């Protein structure tokens, strides 16, 4: 069985048209990212079968779900998906327990009641089971919606900006659940968002949409350092790097993170050695020097080679660096660029002023 999803959809959308062709890996979280109204929710609905594109072609794990040319269209209920709507879309007339059981009862999972308990436990829904949706907070509603989708025995979990309607506090309440879902889910998750912070926290893969078209798709860690994508122009642009904790330093309260090209020293991370940690090094937190710096308060200095650079805004440049395979972005002024006479292929040292953890 081939794992993963391939799709091709065309669908008119008001002033422009959704016109996409791509693939989604069979594991991990793929984010559909872009401005509001770029067609990302529409693409998600096409994957779910809630929208019927034409022409359309969709294959999931080797099974054809939609092929307009051959007249195949699997209705949403027969696809085995979990769909989380923006504002939950819970059944208002049913208690939480019955909401959770709606898809569960109709799926092959109903023979495994322990699965119900596991999901209730994972999302901490126990105290809510006998309540009606009207008596739940926004964050609680979203947790129930996620649980209901998981209990539908899905091969594919689709989430349409599940945090968009929540305030900061409730976002913080849900994000850890999404992360734990990410770590233990055996099924692919497609996640629509327009929030870069959410993207960095949970996505492995990225499909970047613009005006109904795919601007780029690939690993988030790779796309985050592409100079030609709009993400590099954001004020908080920077490389996203998956690292592993190598050791802890009790005396100075520091941790050492390893990645294929080297090591970084960061403030103590309260996780065991060996855990995976995703970090972000913002372009604005890197400065460049030509010779190895002398004693300095900056702990992380990496030798690097200038790969390429681009002007971003007035008097500002963004420089892409290759640190033994690890790509970083640095934002400097045009004046500094001229003073250092930076050219592609030149050896420099990247001084990293701070490393942001996405915990």
């Amino acid at each position, binding site marked *: 069985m081939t794992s993963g999803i391939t799709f091709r959809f065309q669908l008119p959308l008001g002033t422009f048209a959704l016109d996409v062709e791509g693939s989604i890996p069979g594991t991990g979280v793929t984010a559909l990212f872009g401005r509001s109204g770029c067609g990302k929710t529409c693409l998600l609905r096409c994957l779910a079968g809630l929208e019927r594109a034409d022409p359309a072609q969709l294959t999931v794990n080797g099974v054809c779900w939609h092929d307009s040319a051959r007249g195949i269209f699997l209705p949403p*209920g027969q696809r085995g998906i979990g769909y989380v709507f923006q504002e939950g*879309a819970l059944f208002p007339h049913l208690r939480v327990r019955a909401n959770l059981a709606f898809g569960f009862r109709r799926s092959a999972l109903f023979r495994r009641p322990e699965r119900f308990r596991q999901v209730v436990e994972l999302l901490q829904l126990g105290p809510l089971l006998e309540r009606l949706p009207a008596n739940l907070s926004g964050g609680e509603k979203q947790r129930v919606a996620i649980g209901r989708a998981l209990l539908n025995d899905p091969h594919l979990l689709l989430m349409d900006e599940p945090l968009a309607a929540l305030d900061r506090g409730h976002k913080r309440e849900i994000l850890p659940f999404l992360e734990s879902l990410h770590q233990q889910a055996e099924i692919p998750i497609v996640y629509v968002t327009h929030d870069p912070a959410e993207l960095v926290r949970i996505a492995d893969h990225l499909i970047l949409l613009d005006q109904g078209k795919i601007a780029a798709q690939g690993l988030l860690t790779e796309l985050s350092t592409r100079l030609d994508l709009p993400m590099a122009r954001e004020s908080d642009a920077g490389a996203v790097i998956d690292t592993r904790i190598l050791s802890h330093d009790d005396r100075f309260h520091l941790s050492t993170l390893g990645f294929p090209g080297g090591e970084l020293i960061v403030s103590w991370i309260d996780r065991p050695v060996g855990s995976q940690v995703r970090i972000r090094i913002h372009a604005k937190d890197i400065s460049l020097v030509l010779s190895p710096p002398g004693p300095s308060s900056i702990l992380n200095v990496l030798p690097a080679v200038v790969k390429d650079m681009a002007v971003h805004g007035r008097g500002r440049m963004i420089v892409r660096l290759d640190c033994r395979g690890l790509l970083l972005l640095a934002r400097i002024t045009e004046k500094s660029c001229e003073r250092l006479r930076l050219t592609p292929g030149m050896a420099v040292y990247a001084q990293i002023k701070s490393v942001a953890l996405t915990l």
Partner: protein
Amino acid sequence: MMTDDITALWVTLRLALVSTVILLLIGTPIAWWLARSRAPFKILVEALVALPLVLPPTVLGFYLLLLLSADGPAGGFWHTLTGTGLAFTFTGLVIGSVLYSLPFVVQPLQNAFAAIDEPVLEAASTLRAGGMDRFFSVALPLARSGLLTATTLGFAHTIGEFGVVLMIGGNIPGKTQVLSIAIYDHVESLQYAQAHILSAGLLAFSFIILVLVYRMNTRAGARS
């Protein structure tokens, strides 16, 4: 109350009950379709259903009489089928009442169906519920206040009708004579006391029904 009045009351209740059941069976799918369809000819169906609201009942009754009489298209067909006519029978009365009260059943149901959040129905379809399943386990329970309003209004409106019944039912005691016509008879023959009993009864009944409907709607409004 005279025995004739009691018979009229019985005919009226039976008519209202049978009509309401049929109205719900016909009106629910029509209302669901009207609430969900984007077909261009939908407004024609909507206007047709709403006609009894504006037409004088006599107009409706007149055309029904032509339709249902032994040499009319529907009446003739019925005659060859069953050997009996439709005009001036209880069955004819039911047909007239159903048509006449249709908007009172369809409109509250249509509004209730239209008020259901689209994502809620979509959620049901992603959760393995097919069309019928979705309708009975999500749409209908969510439209229950509309269903109650439709039932009570359909029932009460059938009890109160006069014109259509007079045109196609005539005034046959024990068969087609209903309360509203019995009242008319009493007034014609100057039996005001009898007319009072029936009229006051209908007045109180209608008022109570409306109070119940409004209370139901207020409660449903407060819930959602």
